[in-house]
């Protein structure tokens, strides 16, 4: 990324040599992102992040297909970028079916099949959930969508780079990617749009990104995203198994040392790096702050909703009460996490939990 700030100042739309150089760097990044998910280079559109990718996919199809129908199918555990977009479309006269999930946080493809109607135009189901890490049966849903001739979008922000993704095998028409979830820069993302997919752009303007996303490209962000994609692909077979082992060590260690804790989504296929732990009788905000003061960064719910009083819609959807949801911790690991990091958490968390439980009016009664 750095050379883009210090040497290559060109605008990728220009004909001159500076611009050509920028254009080459973007296309180089495009091919790296494409390779990570087995897409063709021309099927990748760069934009500002996962949120915009989700918006472009959902609104773009909703607009382009509205003469065919106005019915959209999505799940109850989508990221806010999908959820609020669908809610907004509901206000605009679209009908949305919100598919529930099992207690493990999984969508049953049968429910999608049953929700299909002649006026269905889009199915949007995330690949892996950002709070509990459960991996949805995207391939089966893809087959259903294909048979029904309905567009299929999947929010792949969390899964990209953590599990192998092959958009051909998954049969998705659109797939969202965010830079900062794969150690790339924030404010850069991509949407895979299968060849032949017709969607109306969100931005009107100079027709950049083959008329799909107008606006001068964020060259530095895109180059960073490309490099992150390249490294992520290499790490899939080397780093992720190690991360998964660390995650399992963390969960086993905490369960051995703290009573009354549960791993949400434990029995479902999960991302290797995500752990969502519900601590009974310990208030979530206190847990997060106490851990942060010890140098451990975790969250309750999704990063976007911290500080909000609404219990996580994901945890509510898997049957947790608001109190249980507030007492749930999201621990995310990465290729940079070490065994010492894990052992440190296992070492400090029990004391914190004990202190908070001492203050809980309910704990003592148990």
């Amino acid at each position, binding site marked *: 990324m750095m050379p883009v700030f210090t040497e290559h100042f060109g605008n990728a739309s220009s004909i001159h040599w500076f611009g050509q150089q920028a254009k080459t760097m973007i296309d180089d990044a495009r091919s790296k992102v494409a390779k990570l998910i087995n897409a063709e280079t021309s099927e990748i559109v760069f934009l500002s992040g996962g949120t915009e990718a989700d918006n472009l996919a959902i609104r773009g199809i909703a607009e382009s297909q509205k003469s065919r129908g106005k019915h959209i199918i999505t799940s109850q555990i989508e990221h806010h970028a999908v959820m609020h977009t669908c809610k907004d479309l509901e206000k605009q006269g679209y009908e949305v079916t919100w598919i529930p999930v099992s207690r493990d946080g999984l969508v049953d493809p049968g429910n999608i099949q049953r929700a299909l109607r002649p006026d269905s135009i889009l199915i949007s189901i995330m690949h892996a959930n950002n709070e509990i890490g459960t991996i949805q049966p995207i391939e089966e849903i893809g087959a259903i969508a294909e048979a029904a001739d309905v567009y299929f979008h999947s929010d792949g922000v969390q899964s990209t780079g953590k599990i192998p993704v092959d958009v051909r095998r998954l049969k998705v028409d659109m797939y969202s990617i965010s830079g900062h979830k794969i150690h790339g820069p924030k404010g850069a993302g991509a949407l895979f749009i299968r060849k032949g997919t017709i969607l109306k752009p969100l931005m009107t303007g100079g027709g950049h990104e083959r008329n799909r996303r107008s606006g001068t490209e964020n060259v530095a962000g895109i180059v960073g995203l490309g490099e992150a994609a390249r490294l992520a692909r290499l790490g899939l077979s080397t780093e992720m198994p190690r991360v998964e082992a660390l995650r399992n060590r963390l969960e086993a260690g905490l369960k051995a040392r703290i009573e009354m804790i549960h791993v949400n989504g434990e029995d479902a296929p999960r991302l290797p790096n995500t752990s969502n732990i519900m601590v009974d009788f310990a*208030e979530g*905000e*206190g847990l997060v*702050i*106490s851990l*942060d*003061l010890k140098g451990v960064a975790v969250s309750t719910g999704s990063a976007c909703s911290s*500080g909000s*009083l609404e219990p996580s819609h994901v945890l509510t959807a898997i049957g947790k009460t608001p109190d249980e949801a507030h007492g749930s911790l999201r621990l995310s690991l990465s290729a940079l996490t070490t065994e010492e990091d894990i052992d440190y958490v296992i070492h400090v968390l029990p004391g914190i939990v004990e*202190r908070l439980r001492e203050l809980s009016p309910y704990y003592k009664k148990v």
Partner: protein
Amino acid sequence: MIAVAMSGGVDSSTAAVLLKEAGEEIVGLSMQLWNQRRVLQGEDEDLKRAGRCCSLDDIWDARRVASHLGMPFYVLNLENEFESTVVSPFVASYLRGETPSPCILCNNDVKFHHLVDKAAGIGADKVATGHYARVRHDESLGRWLLLRGKDRGKDQSYFLFGLTQNQLSKTVFPLGELSKPEVREIARRAGLPTYDKAESQEICFVQGRSYADFVEKYAGTGSEKPGDIVTKEGEVVGSHTGIHKFTVGQRKGHVATGRPQYVVKIEPFENRIVIGNDPELHERRFTIRDSNWIAIENVTEPIRCDVQIRNRFDPQPASVSRSEDGKIVVEFDKPQRAITPGQAAVLYWDDVVVGGGWIERIAVRPERPSVKTL
């Protein structure tokens, strides 16, 4: 570890500076108390208005200060607690014909109540705020005392009369011995990004609107009940569009008699505003409810003290006793102007806060209980 309640203003920021300079381990906590969405749905103008203690701007300022001081900082969302313990009672109080004092409720029932708990949860054994007041432990009494801030002009002990012994034992007021100019100087010297920030004056959640306006918005339709304006003798001399628009002592331009007239009483059940001359505003006796005692355990025997009935008023000598039905009765030596239901009455022995309560009912008959002088 000490948790510093940071509002984003100069005072709490300077409190953090002083603790840090004293070598304390500190963590900053800001409280998000109010979201204007809760009453002003759909009014973009208001949503956008930058404002006082409940606004994001202040939390951002607090965060900038914390980052400047290199201290950990967190925002606690206490909107629900604030609405149920401050905003709703504030509105209900106006609709009952009182003039409430929400900042005191906020201190007692939101700030200190939740902060002390939250702080304990994250391993902080004490809580510090930027109030101008002092806390001291008195060995002979075996009690924690609350004292006025040394800068009498800035003193905020009036707002803190509700603190319990447990809360006081865990509270630090780093500004208690300082004056406002000294505080600004410390803030400037420490390079705080907010050292010259304006002070908040308004009730934070009302922000720029009139209280009456806010009350109507929050309470919804039906809160504007028209009624009569009467004299003490019951003669109807005018009409009003809601008792929440009045406060005791307020001048009411009815000059039929040629003399200025004032609101002397608000009668919620009759939905009436009683007006009269200035002398009629002066009363000696009233009762208080929901009292809290700091320097004493309780009022059993009558006591002598100085009683302050509004922020910035001078305290006046009075006797305080418990009536036969258990009510706390305050009786001033001399009649006082505009004793207002809903405001706090705080009892002092010089700088020491004896305790206090909420002004409830103004008794018209002056009858003297026997009083023992301390």
